[in-house]
């Protein structure tokens, strides 16, 4: 079978001593920056680009890829331990992961994250190996109308993430959408909502908002409740998930993996939707839906498997079409161009060692990461026992450094402080930050696709229903909205006293 030959070729490349070393360096570095709040893979890869000039191209790309998915692993660590999402994909993990940590179950949470990520990585690598070219064709079928409808569906899913008041969650999503629009408008070039501040011309970065709303708000609220910090240092039970845990997380991981793999292929931001799509799906089908938001293990397994699967499959548009799915992929294209490799459809045929070597090394990298991260869990747990008064200044410092390093501008830190204040107020008013962040990420993308679809259809709004893929997304979104709204209305009438946690 040809695929077997290809995989053998790939492994022979990936397992060469130099490439193994590159992979190790990459995942180590990736984990480190994933764990440090604020510093992300984009900044790191950009800085390391010059070093890759002098390296063998395959090795260089293996290292950079390792940094990317290594950062995913690291990002879930901080999401679980301190409620700080390192990447947009870890936002969802914060919800249940952090709650699990608060209840002394940080160990199982971290182990779950590592294990399901590995599983998802393996499966996704296999999918990439088997289906890369036909999947690329699917990616081509997604035009602006399809993306817009997918994002509408994604936003409806974001509302499901909330476990409090439905209306306030929707309002937070809309607020996020609006805040995401700050900056230069793609279609017209007009600078919106920026009050002439040129630093805002490219909008507000995700990292800045996340650090502010999650990081600063969390630290301040923790400082205000002195006594309750002891929850963390309370007896930390097993470091490993129980049998019961495994029984619950396996189906969640399976669903998450396939959903994530599917969404990761879409170049226009599909991988973002992977984690919260998986979370929503899980919440809807799980028997333990009531536990979601309080530390349900499925709430960690589903998004983590989805985002890792999505991370692997997002290499497909890069390697087959030469289209970057996100900022990191754009950097990878840069790295390839430096090496004189023109990314595009011919890479697979002209440079099979590169293509299959990278795919095989993704598996190797995932293996390294799980081997690396599992023993570290003990260390992370110890970290939680550090008195908070020593922990939080450290977190603040790393956040400050990370945010500052984004564009070497103190202005970003100012914005982070603003979002810190906003986050604090929102927490006090019981408005949840997670839906807002997701709206923030999707807002500009949605508008861009909406306008482009309308432009291409010359103003015909029915185009969203005329295209089959787009129509199906919208229909699912409407159904989902109905499902969410109905029980809420019923619940309001019955359990008026116990609506909010």
């Amino acid at each position, binding site marked *: 079978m040809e695929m077997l030959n290809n995989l053998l070729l790939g492994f022979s490349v990936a397992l060469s001593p130099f490439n193994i070393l590159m992979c190790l360096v990459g995942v180590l570095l990736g984990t480190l920056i994933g764990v440090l709040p604020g510093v992300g893979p984009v900044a790191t890869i*950009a800085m390391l*680009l010059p070093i890759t000039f002098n390296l063998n191209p395959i090795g260089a790309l293996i290292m950079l890829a390792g940094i990317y998915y290594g950062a995913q692993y690291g990002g879930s660590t901080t999401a679980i331990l301190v409620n700080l999402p390192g990447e947009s994909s870890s936002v969802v993990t914060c919800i249940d992961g952090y709650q699990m940590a608060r209840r002394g179950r940080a160990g199982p949470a971290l182990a779950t994250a590592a294990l399901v990520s590995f599983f998802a990585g393996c499966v996704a690598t296999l999918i990439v190996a088997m289906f890369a070219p036909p999947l690329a064709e699917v990616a081509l079928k997604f035009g602006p109308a399809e993306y817009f409808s997918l994002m509408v569906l994604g936003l409806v899913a974001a509302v499901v993430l909330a476990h409090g008041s439905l209306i306030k969650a929707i309002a937070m999503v809309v607020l996020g959408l609006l805040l995401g629009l700050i900056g230069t408008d793609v279609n017209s070039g007009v600078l919106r909502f920026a009050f002439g501040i040129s630093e805002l*011309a490219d909008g507000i970065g995700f990292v800045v908002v996340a650090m502010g709303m999650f990081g600063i708000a969390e630290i301040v609220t923790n400082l205000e409740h002195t006594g309750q910090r002891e929850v963390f240092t309370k007896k930390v039970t097993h470091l490993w998930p129980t049998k019961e845990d495994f029984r619950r997380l396996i189906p969640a991981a399976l669903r998450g993996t396939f959903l994530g793999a599917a969404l990761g292929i879409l170049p226009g931001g599909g991988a973002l939707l992977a984690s919260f799509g998986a979370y929503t799906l899980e919440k809807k089908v799980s028997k333990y839906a009531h536990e979601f938001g309080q530390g349900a293990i499925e709430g960690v397994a589903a998004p983590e498997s989805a985002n890792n699967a999505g991370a692997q499959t997002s290499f497909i548009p890069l390697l087959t079409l030469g289209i970057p799915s996100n900022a990191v992929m754009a950097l990878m294209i*840069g790295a390839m161009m430096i090496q004189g490799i023109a990314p595009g459809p011919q890479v697979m045929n002209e440079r099979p060692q590169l293509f299959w070597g990278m795919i095989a090394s993704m598996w190797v990298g995932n293996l390294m990461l799980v081997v690396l991260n599992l023993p570290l869990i003990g260390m992370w747990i110890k970290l939680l026992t550090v008195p908070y008064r020593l922990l939080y200044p450290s977190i603040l410092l790393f956040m400050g450094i990370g945010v500052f390093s984004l564009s070497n501008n103190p202005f970003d830190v100012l914005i982070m402080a603003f979002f810190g204040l906003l986050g604090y107020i929102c927490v006090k008013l019981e408005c949840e930050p997670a839906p807002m962040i997701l709206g923030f990420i999707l807002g500009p993308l949605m508008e861009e696709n909406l306008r482009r679809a309308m432009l291409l259809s010359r103003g015909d709004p029915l185009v969203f229903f005329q295209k089959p893929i787009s129509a199906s997304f919208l229909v699912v979104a409407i159904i989902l909205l109905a499902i969410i709204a109905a029980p809420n209305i019923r619940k309001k009438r019955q359990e008026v006293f116990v609506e909010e946690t």
Partner: protein
Amino acid sequence: MKRALTAIALAAAAGAALAQGWPSRPVRLIAPYAAGGPIDISARLLAGKLQESLGQPVVVENRPGAGGNLGVEMAAKSAPDGHTLVIGAIATHAINPTLMGSVPYDPVRDFRHIALMVQVPNVLVVNLDLPASSVAELIALARARPGKLDFASGSTGSTGHLAGELFKQMTGTYMVHIPYKGAAPAVLDLVAGRVHLMFDNLASALPNIRGGKVRALAVTTKKRSSFLPDLPTLDESGLKGFDMTTWWGVMAPAKTPQAVVERLNAEILRALEAPDVRERLRAMGSETPAIRTPEEFTAFVAAEGRIYAELVRRSGAKPD
């Protein structure tokens, strides 16, 4: 009069003295675009080589924003001691000043234009299913179907966009402009057939042309590209005088001493000729620019500014 002369003499002496000791600390090369893009990559390539010859680290600082204006403005306002350089591009120095109404710097007077690094042509590429295999056929098609053809570009005000507008003007056709965030998603839609044509830059178009995913009709420069020698130019195809490239080069704040400028010019040109740098720049579709001296570069920037000011105004390529 004597005072003025003394001042000039002192300044020159100071300039020379400065140049002697220059560089005395790490040099900042501001890349006003996001990391990973062609401008950023070429900046890093150059920085690596310059480090060796200057003896001090040359650090690339990404300052993306406002189409490049942010980084450029920062550089214009920096101390002119030769330790701050910036990559100025056609966007920041020729197009944006008119497109955005005003920019917080003067592209000619606030800078010393040290060396032109890269000049890349754009290529007119069409979707394979479009029934046009030459520029003439395309023009006929566009005239037969006014308003029905869509042309994509990487952003409003990019050379791809303006090339399209100029094309429309010179041929008297009406096509709808569809802006994207970057060349990559635009190319994706072009290949998929959601848009019909694009004036893509050579670096991004070459792999797709070679891979048979799109059909190339012409280049936007007056001279044929050495990468696609069989491809006619738009000038040859009936649009007389059509000559557009995307370019960028190294600049410094206006009052940077002459001695520093001259030394930098020499070093940069030498770095650009190093085989590995040249190789990689060629991979981007760039040919070695004909413009070598700072004076030529300044004249070039001024000329481009005038051309694009006129073009932007005529095409009405302004915010919706």
